C-alpha cells in the first residue's frame, strides 16, 4: 500500500527553538536531579557576573534556596547588575537563541540559552510562572518593574501575566523560580560546591547564600579590583574559514570587499590587502556580495601562508595570578599556594586563549574522602566552574599526564592538594552542548602542562625547604648523640682510653651543610652500588 508524497507531507511542520528544547531538555544540561539544579545556579550566577562586569559594577549576588517538598524548591536569585529594561525582560527569559553575547567576546555564557532554559525547566516541572523585579537606569533615574510571565513555547516568546511599576533602591535583577525534580546536594557536582568554586575564580565578587536548612553562607570579596571589561575582538585571519568570509560578505554594510577585510578581521592592514590582491589577482574593490566561494577559499588558503601578528589579546582578561591566589587563600586557607597566568597562545591557528593555574597545598586543600585527604582538580573556563564530564576534559587529561613524582609528590592521589586550572578564551572549544569539558587541542594540553609544571616546581621547592629545615635540626642532634658513644665503643675495641673529643665533635657539628650534600652524593653512589650488589645474583 504505497502512499504518495503530498499525503505524507501533510504532516510536515516547523518547531520553534523552545519547542525543540522542551522535547530535548537534556541538551541544555538538564539531566539528573543534582545536575539540573547545579545548571540552574550556573546559568543565573554567570549571567549576573557578566551583566555586572559589563556595566562596570562589582558583582554581588544573594541566593536563597527554600525546600518546599522532596525534590521541590523555590529559588530566589538577586544581583546588583545594571538590570534589564522592561521591554527586554521576556526576551531574555523566554526567547531561546536570544542574547547580547553573540559577538567574538570573552564571556561566561555565550549561547543565548541559559536564562530561558531555567524558565523552561521551571515551567515544565511546576507550571509556575517566573517572577522578575528589574531595576535599571534610564538617564539619571532608576526605574523599577515587577513582572510575572510564562514562556509560550509555540511562539518562543514570553507571555506576560502581570506587570507593575515598583520602587527600587538600586539597579539589578531579582528572579524567583520554582523547580521540581531537582535536588540540592553537597557533592562535588552539587550546587554548593559550584558556588564555592565560583568564588575562587571570582574573588572580586560577593555571594550570600542561604541553603535549604536555613544556614547562611557569606563568601566575602578577596579583592576589590573589578576585572577590566573584555573588548570585542575581530576574528584573526588564521581563524576564519571561507564560509566565514562569505557569511561576513553577505551581512556587511561595507561597499567593497577590501574595506570589509580591514574592518572585520584583526591584523589586516591595507598593505596586507594589497598583497592579497596582487597574489590572488582577485579584484578586491568589488562589492562584498559579488565575492565567490572559490575566491574566498583562495584568500583563506593565502591567509594560512602569510605571517600575521598573533591575535590581539585585549579581548582576553585573565583572572590574574594575584587574584587567583587571593581567591584560593580566601576559600581554601592553604599552607602554601602558587599561581601563574601564562601568556596568550592560539589554537587551531587563530583562536587565542590563556591558561591560568594554581596549586594549593595543606589547609582546606584537597577533598575529604572518609577520614583521608585526596587531591582534587578544579576546572574553569572563563572563570566558570566545570562540574561535569571531568573524564573527557582536556584540562584533566593534561594534569593527569604530568609526572608528579618529578616534583617530589609521590602519591598525587592521596596528597592534600587542590589544582586549579582556568582557560580564558573568546571561544573555548567545548566538547558538547553541556559546556562541561574542553576539547583536547594540542596547544591547550601543552599550556596546561607548562603552567602546572611551573607552579609544581614552586611547590616542590616549598616542600623541600620544609624538609630541609627539619633535617638540619636533627643533624646536630645526631652528632651530639652518636660521637660520644662511638668513641667509647672504639676505645673498648682498641683496649685504650677514650680520647679528648670536644674538638672533633665541634668540627663535625659545625660542618657547613654544603659538605654534607657532597658526601651525600658519594654515599648515594656507594649505597646504590651496595644495592646493586645485593640484588646481583650469585
Amino acid at each position: 500500500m504505497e502512499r504518495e508524497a503530498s499525503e505524507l507531507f501533510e504532516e510536515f511542520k516547523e518547531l520553534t527553538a523552545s519547542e525543540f528544547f522542551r522535547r530535548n531538555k537534556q541538551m541544555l544540561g538538564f539531566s539528573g536531579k543534582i545536575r539540573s539544579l547545579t545548571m540552574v545556579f550556573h546559568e543565573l550566577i554567570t549571567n549576573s557576573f557578566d551583566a555586572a562586569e559589563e556595566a562596570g559594577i562589582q558583582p554581588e549576588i544573594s541566593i536563597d534556596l527554600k525546600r518546599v517538598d522532596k525534590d521541590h524548591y523555590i529559588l530566589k536569585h538577586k544581583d546588583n547588575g545594571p538590570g534589564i529594561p522592561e521591554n527586554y525582560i521576556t526576551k531574555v527569559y523566554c526567547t531561546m537563541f536570544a542574547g547580547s553575547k553573540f559577538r567574538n567576546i570573552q564571556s561566561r555564557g555565550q549561547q543565548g540559552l541559559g536564562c530561558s532554559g531555567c524558565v523552561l525547566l521551571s515551567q515544565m516541572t511546576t507550571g509556575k510562572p517566573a517572577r522578575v523585579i528589574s531595576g535599571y537606569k534610564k538617564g539619571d533615574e532608576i526605574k523599577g518593574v515587577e513582572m510575572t510571565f510564562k514562556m509560550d513555547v509555540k511562539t518562543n516568546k514570553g507571555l506576560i501575566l502581570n506587570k507593575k511599576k515598583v520602587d527600587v533602591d538600586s539597579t539589578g535583577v531579582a528572579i524567583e523560580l520554582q523547580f521540581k525534580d531537582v535536588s540540592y546536594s553537597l557533592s562535588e557536582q552539587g550546587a554548593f560546591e559550584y558556588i564555592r568554586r565560583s568564588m575562587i575564580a571570582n574573588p572580586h565578587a560577593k555571594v550570600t547564600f542561604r541553603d535549604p536548612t536555613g544556614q547562611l553562607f557569606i563568601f566575602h570579596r578577596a579583592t576589590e579590583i573589578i576585572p577590566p571589561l573584555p573588548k570585542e575582538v575581530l576574528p584573526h585571519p588564521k581563524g576564519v574559514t571561507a564560509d566565514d568570509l562569505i557569511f561576513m560578505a553577505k551581512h556587511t554594510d561595507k561597499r567593497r570587499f577590501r574595506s570589509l577585510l580591514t574592518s572585520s578581521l584583526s591584523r589586516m592592514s591595507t598593505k596586507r590587502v594589497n598583497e592579497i590582491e596582487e597574489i590572488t589577482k582577485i579584484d578586491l574593490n568589488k562589492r562584498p556580495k559579488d565575492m565567490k566561494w572559490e575566491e574566498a577559499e583562495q584568500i583563506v588558503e593565502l591567509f594560512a601562508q602569510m605571517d600575521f601578528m598573533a591575535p590581539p589579546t585585549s579581548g582576553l582578561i585573565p583572572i590574574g595570578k594575584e587574584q587567583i591566589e587571593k581567591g584560593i587563600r580566601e576559600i581554601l586557607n592553604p599552607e602554601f599556594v602558587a599561581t601563574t597566568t601564562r601568556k596568550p597562545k592560539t589554537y587551531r591557528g587563530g583562536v587565542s586563549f590563556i591558561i591560568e593555574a594554581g596549586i594549593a597545598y595543606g589547609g582546606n586543600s584537597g577533598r575529604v574522602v572518609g577520614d583521608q585527604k585526596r587531591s582534587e582538580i578544579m576546572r574553569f573556563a572563563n572563570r566558570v566552574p566545570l562540574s561535569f564530564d571531568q573524564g573527557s576534559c582536556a584540562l584533566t587529561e593534561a594534569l593527569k599526564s604530568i609526572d608528579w613524582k618529578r616534583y617530589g609528590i609521590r602519591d598525587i592521589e592521596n596528597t592534600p592538594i587542590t589544582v586549579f586550572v582556568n582557560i580564558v578564551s573568546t571561544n573555548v572549544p567545548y566538547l558538547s552542548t553541556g559546556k562541561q569539558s574542553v576539547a583536547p587541542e594540542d596547544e591547550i594540553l601543552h599550556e596546561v602542562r607548562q603552567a602546572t609544571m611551573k607552579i609544581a616546581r614552586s611547590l616542590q621547592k616549598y616542600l623541600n625547604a620544609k624538609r630541609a629545615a627539619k633535617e638540619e635540626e636533627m643533624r646536630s642532634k645526631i652528632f651530639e648523640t652518636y660521637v660520644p658513644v662511638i668513641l667509647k665503643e672504639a676505645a673498648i675495641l682498641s683496649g685504650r682510653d677514650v680520647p679528648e673529643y670536644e674538638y672533633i665533635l665541634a668540627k663535625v657539628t659545625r660542618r657547613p651543610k654544603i659538605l654534607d650534600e657532597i658526601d651525600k652524593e658519594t654515599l648515594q653512589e656507594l649505597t646504590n652500588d651496595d644495592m646493586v650488589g645485593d640484588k646481583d645474583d650469585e
Partner: protein
Amino acid sequence: MTSRKEHALKRRDLAVNKLTSLGDRIIDDVAKQTVPAIRVPSRGTSNIVYDEDRRYYVLGDRYGQRSLGNVKQIKKIGQMVYMANFCKGLVQTGKTATLREMYYVSEGWDIDFGDQQESNIVGEDLEVTLGITREDLGLMPEEDGASVYGDITLKDDDVEINAMRMGKSGYTISPTIDEVELLDHNVERVIAVETMGMFHRMVQENAYKKFNTLIVGLKGQAARATRRFLKRVNEELGLPVYICNDGDPWGFHIAMVIISGSAKLAHVNHELATPNAKFLGVTASDIVNYDLPTDPLKDIDVLRLKELYKDPRYRDEFWKVEIKKMLKIGKKAEQQSFSKYGLEYVVDTYIPEKLDAL
C-alpha cells in the same frame, strides 16, 4: 702441616688483631684531631671483576667512605664499631652466633639496626673492611651445608667421624667446617649432585663403591660451608671434584658458583671457589643424546641463559656451545629424568659414560 686446631687458633688471633686495629684507627684519628673515616671496599657490580688468573671473582680497587663527620655515615660507623666489639667477644670465647642472634643482641646497643637487612649489610662491611670471612668473626650462617656419604674420616672437636658410618643420609657439613680436620680417606674422587633425591639414589645404587667416590648432596644452591668443604677436599686432599646437576640454567649456575665463586661474595671467593672442579652434566647435549623427558624453557629460564652467556665465568667454548644448544632446543631436564630408563640407569650407564668422556 700444622694441625687443624693450631690452624684455627692462628686464625682467631688474626681476627682479634684485625678487629682491635679498627678501634685503633679511630682513636688515633681523634688523637690527631682528624675526623675519623673508614675506607670500605665497594661491593657494587662495577667493582667486582673476574680474575682470569685465579679463575674467580675478586673485588677491585674502589672504596667508599664511612666518616664520623657525615650525618648519614656516622650511624654506619657506629654500628660497625659495636659489631666489631661483639665479634671480638665471640672470637675470644670461641663461640659463634647467627646474624639473627646478633641482630637481637644489638637491641641493647646505643646505636641499633633498623632491620635485619641493615645489620647484614654492616656485617658484610666489616668482613670486607678487615679482609676476613664472617665465619672467622664468629658469625655463622643458619643453614647447614650439604650431606656427604663415603669413606672419609673427619675430626671435629676430638670426635672422629666416618661419613660412611652415619646412616643413609650421611654426614652433614656444619657451618664451622673450617675447624674440622680432614683426617683420612679412601676415595678417588668427589661427585656432588644437586638434589637429595639423586643423593639417595646414588647411595642406594652403591655409587660410592662403584666409583670409589664421596657423594655430596648439595640441596640446591651450595651453602658457604659446602663450598669451603669442596675447596678443602680438592686442595688439601687433592681429590678431583665433579658436579652433576639438573640440565637447566639454575643447575649450571649452582655448579659455576662452586667452581668460580659468586659475584656477591667476591671479597671471600679466595676461601670459597674451587676452580679445579668440573661440571659433569646434565648438558643440553645429554638431553638430546639420551632423549630425556623435558620441560619447555620458561621465559625466565631463557632470560637467565642469556645472562649466563654474557658472564665471563662461562667464557669456555664448552659453555658457549651448551648454552646456545639449550636455547635452540628450548628444553631443560632434571637429573632424575634418567629414571625413564630405570632407576639404576643414571649410576650404571650415564655417570660412567660421562666420566669416561672427560
